[in-house]
């Protein structure tokens, strides 16, 4: 039995997802490819967003993929770390902003 839930080699098998549902798999990968094409945002900017989101959703495959993608694009480690802090700030802020809900509840119920 596999001893870990994640195997780095599985990242390379991502495309095989289509084998069990070709229509949806193909549509997904077409969409995925289109999303990362240069548009109003550059491919470089999209790569940094993807890296930050990868950390937010804590996807090891995505972190692996978009760290490598960033290096290939010449993205520096300083840029990568700043992007991660944006993700961390939003994620931390998302917890903290719920404190307003807590405060509202306390203020309503507490004497």
């Amino acid at each position: 039995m596999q001893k870990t839930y994640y195997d780095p080699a599985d990242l390379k098998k991502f495309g095989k997802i289509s084998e069990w549902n070709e229509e949806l798999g193909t549509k997904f990968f077409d969409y995925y490819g289109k999303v990362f094409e240069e548009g109003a945002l550059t491919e470089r900017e999209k790569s940094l967003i993807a890296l930050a989101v990868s950390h937010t959703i804590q996807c090891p495959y995505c972190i692996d993929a978009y760290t490598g993608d960033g290096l290939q694009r010449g993205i520096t480690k300083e840029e990568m770390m700043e992007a991660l802090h944006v993700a961390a700030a939003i994620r931390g802020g998302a917890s903290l902003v719920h404190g307003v809900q807590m405060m509202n509840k306390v203020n309503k119920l507490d004497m």
Partner: protein
Amino acid sequence: MLKSLHKRHSELANSKRQLEILSNGIFKSGDLPTFKDKISETNQFPLKAKKLEILQINVGYMCNQVCEHCHVDAGPDRKEIMTRDTMQHILEIINQTGAHTLDLTGGAPEMNPNFRWFVEEASKVGIKDFIVRSNLTIITSNKKHHDLPEFFKKHNIHIVSSMPHWTKGKTDKQRGNGVFDASITALKMLNAIGYGMPDSNLRLDLVYNPTGAFLPGNQSSLEKDFKKALNADFNIQFNNLFAITNLPISRFLDYLIASDNYEDYMYALVEAYNPAAVAKVMCTNTLSVSWDGYLYDCDFNQMLSLPINSKAKHISEYNEDLLIGRDIVISQHCYGCTAGAGSSCQGSVA
């Protein structure tokens, strides 16, 4: 300063050892296909030499820099330098070759004591594109080299120079401390006399090699980023960026093994294999001449001591009939030229 593999007496200074590594392990076990097997899948084996277009001359392995990724294992300690006699042989056959491009490389070609004489003589031959691969820092390294930009301009030399990143940190890490600042100074000197400037015929191209165990990204995207950053930070202009994959030989192979990246890198190269790039690999239209006048299919094969598969083995024996159609000598390092958009001394090919 980093020392060359030769100076360190590393086993990888021996090309036979490098070829052993590239032929054994994951390739011998069958985990990865050999390059021969891979190109055979698309009936592209054997690779055949076409008409010669680019004559690339390595005038010596001596260099003022010792870069981490150098496939030549060049450095100040290397004594292999092309003699004037060998240069004379080359001058005598340039016209016979029909090559439209003459490409001088090294080491730092400017460190060859006969460099200027050779450029002056070769520029009289009427080659369409005369390239010197200058590492830039040689220009600022010594007062005697400060007039190189004017010398290049006088002979209408096309300058191709390495610049792995637009930031100091990444550049110096690969090419040595102080290289970035010296390169910027040299680029400004070149720009000042017209090199790389809009509406100028003086061509200045930059070469990007990845600064680690990863493949280059899209060449045109990188070029845009380089242009934007070098213009914004230093008001520097250049013509084109060539994205070149690091081949797993010499000092880059040493780095891959030492950093435990060798197998992953070879997997990445094989995975990125592009049959369309095979048809356009540079060895099919290029001839590499070593410092001692011997012929090779490319500068990488020269460093691996893989001699050309022809009866004409030395520049003094040059014979188009014997060279055209020859089988190109290959090994697993060739995957470096066929990954993704392909890679050549002129950048991406596919």
